[in-house]
């Protein structure tokens, strides 16, 4: 089983991605509503892949990456920034802080999301 952490504050997208990922065999999915929850979860668990939204309340995507220090604490975790921002400081900061890939949510159909997940997990 590969462990995937979904971090997304918008309910409709959180539900859609949960349904999608939950229907895939071999994936164990955990869901966080914002960067702070994700940070708390990562305190006691490691993941193979994190799907990370950027614009979230309490602690946003960039804040999560800064605090989580995944490069030191779990270097094998792949991070895909799933954001509806197509450019800007936040995106550049996320990539600089160790995100491996960026995808614009509104560009992706469910199949395309799964394609990215499979590529990152080497499946």
């Amino acid at each position, binding site marked *: 089983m590969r462990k995937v952490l979904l971090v997304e504050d918008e309910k*409709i*997208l959180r539900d859609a991605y949960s349904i999608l990922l939950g229907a895939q065999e071999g994936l164990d999915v955990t869901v966080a509503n914002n960067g702070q929850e994700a940070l708390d979860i990562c305190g006691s668990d490691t993941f193979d892949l994190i799907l990370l939204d950027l614009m979230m309340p309490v602690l946003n995507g960039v804040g999560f990456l800064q605090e989580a220090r995944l490069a030191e604490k779990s270097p094998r975790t792949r991070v895909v920034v799933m954001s*509806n921002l*197509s*450019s800007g400081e936040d995106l550049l900061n996320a990539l600089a802080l160790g995100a491996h890939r960026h995808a614009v949510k*509104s560009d992706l159909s*469910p*199949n395309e999301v799964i394609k990215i997940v499979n590529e990152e997990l080497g499946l």
Partner: protein
Amino acid sequence: MATDNRLAKLKVGSREYTEFSRLLVNTIQEYAIFLLDPDGRIATWNPGAQKLKGYSPDEIIGKHFSVFYPTQDIAAGKPAWELVEARKNGHVEDEGWRIRKDGSRFWANVVITALFDDEGVLVGFAKVTRDLSDRKKRDEQLHRANQMLKRQSMELQKLNKSKDEFISLASHQLRTPASGVKQFLGLVLQGYAGELTGLQREYLTRAYESNDREIELINDLLRVAQVDAGKVILKKEKRDVGKLIADVVNEQEERITVKRQMVVFDIPKKPVVAHVDTARFRMVLENILDNASKYTHDDGTISISVWHDENDVSVAIADTGVGIDDSAFSKLFKKFSRIPNELSEEVGGSGLGLYWAYRIIELHGGTIAVDSLPGKGTTFTIKVPKESQDA
């Protein structure tokens, strides 16, 4: 000449010249022209001075000329300083406030000239004063108008910037619900909610595609807002334009194949290299190729040529489509301009693509030209410099 002969007698010091000078001083009403003694006391007066300052000769002759100055100027020693300057340099010119007899003030232009006798002894000063109040008022009005225009300009710039920021923010926000629709409709269409009947699949597909068009519009809005806000920085690389357009055609295959349109290439075998922002330049080519296909009927032809001269590389995309009327040319590259023609209803589109394409090519230092004949077809020619213009 005759004139010279007559004037030859009117030399300085002659009786005639003295008469002439007296005439000038006594009839001129627009200038105060009078003499001061070496200490600055008023020795003569003229009608101009009376008109300007309000004093009659009896009231003013013998008084010190500093009476015309505002109190702060007197306290600062200005009148005395002017006499010193006039002695030193021969004359002094000044502009400033002066006070009339009734206490009102006017903006004056003053020239004080020192007068010396043959032995070089100071015999007094000649003072000429002009009322420039009108001019000063006009200057102040101009200055105020100028300040107001500057403020308005800054306001407009701020508004323009916040307009672009608003469009950017709104576009990002709009993407969320659109993403939600895309996901859930996609889940159903991709089999995650059970089998679909033919009709269910058809209707849901139309909804899915409509939502995708909305997402395209949002993306277009965002791109345009960014280019308008001056936030686009081109990442230029040397690319073979011939290969780029060939790649773009390959990727656009779908619509072209469905419409059974033929694509004809006229591209040199050797690479034709230009300095372009690959991603954006490709999008411009996609845009124009897309239009060529959209606005051409089934079985039509699209011809693509690439050539170069010393400085530039050109790409022409010609179709055998519905064409564009002359009258529509000027609106073609404007935002949200969609020209109605027999195919435009089927086609859809934001009307922003060509505006964006134009701005991007402009940023490259290039041009986009259009040539068209309604009913026969349209050719778009994109020209970009081979070498980057900036350092």
